[in-house]
């Protein structure tokens, strides 16, 4: 197998209580490992609080992971010095969830788009402007947006500006953190198609974070299912949607609304809430909500095992996985 573009190994993140105050240490991510081949889109799905955003931000070192490595080629992003990191930052960009919070209200679109080039000292003023206008063109916005302010645009347009801001750096890798979940459904499709189109055209490698399984199925090559900061299952998209193995994935998939009434029977509803990451269950973290949990689930942490080519799941119930 060729070396993947991005290789995450043993990524963990703990949040400790603030100095001079007591409180539990919260383990948000535990031992996350996965690869992203060049030019592919890997989807990260899970409930709120499962650590999706933390993974995305840890990879880009927007927060510092507690342990683990993030190999991009030969460089370990997690261990770069600030000066080295600065240089690497132009290779990787982040698209934010909230298009209203992610654009500065005091800057024009032009200033927002050229900010990164400015920070990285790429080109002169005129060249930066040309690159920004080219990025606007890529996201199908008119060039006269350059001198306007973010508040003059709608949510969907703002999200395109957010995407343009990432593209202007000509990155190889993009983390898209729920890029459409704050948008109207009618706008979601536009932005998703745009993202998909750009990904193919520019041969971008992408980590796509979402809780919308339909979107993930459409845009991703591989899917990682996350629960309470642990990987439950990972498989190529078609395989995962056709043959989900892990009980959690099955529950998630059965929750997708279907337009076909004949398919609406096997709905499996999970009871209870996601446990607090400050006080996770012993053994398998999903066992408290798992309909197939047995006594042994509380004893051992299930390892992520390969059960078919490229298909891994973390569950000790072989009988369930085989179904």
């Amino acid at each position, binding site marked *: 197998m060729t070396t993947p573009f991005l290789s995450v190994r043993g990524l963990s993140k703990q949040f400790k209580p*603030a*100095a001079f105050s007591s409180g539990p240490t919260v383990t948000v991510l535990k031992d996350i490992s996965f690869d992203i081949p060049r030019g592919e889109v890997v989807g990260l799905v899970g409930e709120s609080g499962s650590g999706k955003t933390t993974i995305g*931000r840890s990879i*880009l070192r*927007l927060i510092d992971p507690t342990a683990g490595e993030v190999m991009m080629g030969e460089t370990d992003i997690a261990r770069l010095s600030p000066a080295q*990191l*600065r*240089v690497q*930052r*132009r290779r990787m*960009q*982040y698209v*934010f969830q*909230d298009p209203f*919070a*992610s*654009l*500065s*209200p*005091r*800057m*024009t679109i032009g200033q*927002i788009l050229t*900010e*990164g080039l400015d*920070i*990285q000292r790429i080109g002169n003023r005129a060249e930066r402007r040309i690159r920004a206008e080219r990025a606007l063109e890529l996201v199908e916005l008119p060039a006269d947006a350059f*001198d*306007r*302010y973010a*508040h*003059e*645009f*709608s949510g969907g347009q703002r999200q395109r500006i957010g995407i343009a*801001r990432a593209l202007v*750096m000509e990155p190889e890798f993009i983390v898209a953190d729920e890029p459409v979940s704050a948008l109207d459904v009618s706008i979601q499709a536009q932005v998703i198609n745009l993202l998909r189109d750009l990904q193919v055209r520019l041969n971008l490698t992408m980590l796509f974070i979402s809780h919308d399984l339909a979107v993930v199925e459409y845009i991703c090559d591989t899917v990682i299912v996350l629960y309470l900061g642990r990987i439950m299952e990972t498989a190529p998209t078609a395989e995962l949607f056709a043959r989900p193995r892990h009980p959690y994935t099955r529950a998630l998939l059965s929750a997708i609304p279907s337009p076909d009434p004949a398919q609406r029977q096997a709905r499996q509803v999970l009871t209870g809430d996601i446990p607090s990451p400050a006080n996770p269950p012993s053994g398998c973290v999903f066992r408290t909500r798992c309909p197939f949990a047995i006594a042994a689930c509380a004893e051992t942490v299930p390892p992520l095992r390969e059960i078919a080519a490229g298909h891994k799941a973390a569950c000790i119930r072989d009988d369930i996985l085989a179904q």
Partner: protein
Amino acid sequence: MTVVSMQTIAGKPAGPMRRALGRFFSNRAALVGLVIFVPMLLAVVTYPLWWPYGPNAIDLTALNKGPSAKHWFGSDGVGRDVLARLLQGGRTSLMVAVVSVAISTVIGFVVGAFAAFGGRFVDGISMRLVDLAMTLPPVIFLLVLASIAGTGIAPTILVIALLSWPVLSRMVRARLLELRERDFVVAARGMGAGVGHLLFRHGLPNSIDIIVVYATLQIANAVLLEAGLSFLGLGIAPPEASWGNMLNSARSAAVLEHFPWQWMFPGAALVLTVLAINFIGDGLRDAFDPRSDLN
């Protein structure tokens, strides 16, 4: 506000600063403040061009004379023109206020930025220092500082500047801490921005509202502080004129009773100036508050 209405009303896209100014100019109290303050400022700055008397010029034919065509605001016990001293005093008072507030604003912003971006340890230390500075009784602190620094313009500026930065540093720190977690600042960090860029491209523009408002209101405060210090004989020393040391003359019962023009005019100037600046400051505060659009 939709794109269409923005364009039809303003003709061209309005930045947040322009909208704030629009709100400011539709505030009646703020306009009254401007109408009082701007002519006063002009008079104070230009008076040597149109008023024949200097602040320390002595007219021996007019000792303790009341207002007349020659001396509009009368003259004092040694024959100096009260209007000339009033205008010169305004120069001193406003200069002391503006310079000391400029210094304390810079100190306040730097300390606030340092606390917000310096990490937990630096934050803890600097905020405890601010706590300490804020728990000192201001009057006593002022008197001690003033007696160390001495009298004159420069020491007075120093004393006022050192007294008034802690509150601003608190506000700047709070704003920057909040800003640090905002997505557009995280985005800038994701593009490799250093502390300098974050501070001056995002921090300063997004805290300019609190800085401007604070500085404006603080100028009014500093005028009062200077007057208080000078009144007590610790600020601007005679023969240099300031509103405070002109009021000082009212301590003599004879002046208080028989020559009211010697203290009434500087007192009125002080009150009007402080009032006008406070109106302007309140107007600016409302103008910068986006919620005031709803009214």
